[in-house]
């Protein structure tokens, strides 16, 4: 009896909002049963992390003031004076670190299992573009607290950007809105970080999902594509996502409570003793920049990173064979392994140089 009343009330609301058609489409929408397997876990986790980043970012903006004199104090206030300040900032901080790692695994899985191949080339391409957004978010986000780490890593990044031939200097000036890292620059970085970049990110996410919906999830290797059991998207998959969302939020909140996210000393451009240390994800790029000197600097700062990015985006158009099993694609996988080896090697070199062998 009670159930019936709830049913009719929700039906009335759906009718009022003219959502009947959408509801029917949602209920009829089915996904392959293998969408729930553990090997497909990364995509769901990434979605959860992105949602957490959006939410925690909105909450952080409540207490943020993008002016050099007050930015640091506003972040410090939100972090230490507001209840759950460390949880909100911590979820943002740990989420993006985790996001970048999980993105690597997500990409590696598609690479190894060949799921980038036709008809899913555009799923891969949009995914790689989304990956390239993350550094932009980090570059613009790191400056916002106006602490030593953020200020000095921004100086280093800006001079790397400036060293790109032809467009580098203008690009850096446009980013900063002048030649100073001051109030104009901070306002710009803030708007890029909270408005423009998220807008574009949502656009590319929508495209990623559009292509997944139309081209389908890749078939698990060694199964018969004709007989592929299906399950309803709602509630089966949606419930899994909600469950994952709750678990990840709670775990990250506990971590943030225990290990307060970092906030350095306030930015001081005169401080000569401060040595910016590159973050883990950028170690290999940093190392590339310092390996190539003089006339070859353009190789490390521009040509090699651009080449790698091109290879990554263009992969589905270069490797056109329909064969997906890793055993038959050893050439591609070996090249990918060698390139990854180089990247990991450079990262280890960078780690040793900046964190272990620091000489003074």
């Amino acid at each position, binding site marked *: 009896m009670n159930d019936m009343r709830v049913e009719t009330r929700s039906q009335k609301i759906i009718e009022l909002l003219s959502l009947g058609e959408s509801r029917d489409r949602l209920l009829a929408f089915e996904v392959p049963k293998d969408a729930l397997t553990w090997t497909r876990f990364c995509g769901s986790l990434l979605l959860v992390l992105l949602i957490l980043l959006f939410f925690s970012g909105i909450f952080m903006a409540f207490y943020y003031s993008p*002016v050099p004199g007050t930015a640091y104090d506003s972040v410090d206030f939100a972090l230490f004076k507001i209840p759950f300040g460390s949880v909100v900032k911590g979820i943002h901080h740990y989420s993006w670190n985790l996001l970048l790692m999980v993105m690597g695994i997500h990409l590696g899985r598609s690479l190894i299992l060949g799921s980038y191949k036709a008809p899913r080339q555009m799923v891969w391409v949009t995914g790689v573009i989304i990956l390239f957004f993350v550094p932009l978010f980090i570059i613009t986000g790191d400056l916002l607290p106006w602490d030593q780490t953020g200020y000095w890593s921004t100086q280093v990044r800006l001079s790397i950007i400036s060293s790109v031939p032809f467009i580098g200097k203008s690009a850096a000036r446009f980013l900063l809105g002048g030649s100073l890292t001051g109030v104009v620059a901070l306002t710009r970085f803030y708007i890029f970080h909270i408005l423009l970049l998220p807008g574009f990110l949502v656009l590319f996410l929508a495209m990623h999902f559009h292509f997944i919906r139309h081209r389908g999830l890749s078939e698990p290797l060694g199964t018969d594509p004709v007989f592929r059991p299906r399950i309803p998207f709602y509630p089966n998959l949606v419930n899994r996502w909600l469950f994952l969302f709750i678990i990840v939020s709670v775990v990250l909140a506990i971590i943030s409570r225990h290990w307060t996210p970092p906030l350095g000393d306030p930015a001081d*451009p005169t401080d000569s003793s401060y040595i910016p240390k590159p973050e883990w994800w950028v170690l290999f790029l940093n190392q590339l920049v310092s390996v190539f000197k003089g006339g070859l600097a353009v190789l490390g700062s521009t040509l090699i990173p651009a080449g790698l990015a091109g290879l990554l985006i263009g992969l589905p158009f270069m490797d056109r064979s329909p064969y997906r099993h890793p055993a038959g694609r050893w050439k591609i996988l070996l090249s990918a392994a060698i390139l990854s080896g180089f990247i990991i090697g450079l990262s280890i070199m960078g780690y040793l140089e900046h964190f272990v062998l620091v000489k003074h």
Partner: protein
Amino acid sequence: MITGVPLATYAIFPALKDNPGSWIDFGSVENLELDNFNMLSYEFMVKDGWIILPQRGFVWARADAEKQIKIFSSTCTHLACNVIWQEETQEFICPCHSGRFNAQGMPVAGPPSRPLSVLEHKVTDGNLLVFMKV
């Protein structure tokens, strides 16, 4: 065109304006320790968009017995960290990527390939003035 040009101009405009730069007074030349690099800190006001803020930093100044003065910017020509003068080794070192410059400001080791920039200076009424641009 009608919307694109005004919007692009709006976003780019402040980036096109160059800061004119100004002469900064570093006090009496007599205060410089001879034949060694002196770290001279500065703070001057710069207009940044809609507010005027202090710009802080330091330069390296060396005067010899004949009152010949040379001023180096502290900005490493590799990736813009601040270089530090090491009296024992008579070199500037950059802590970020271990770049080294000799006393003439020429790169001798590490990633930097361009010499430290020499800043224009003059002595007026016994005071050292350095032309600073940001």
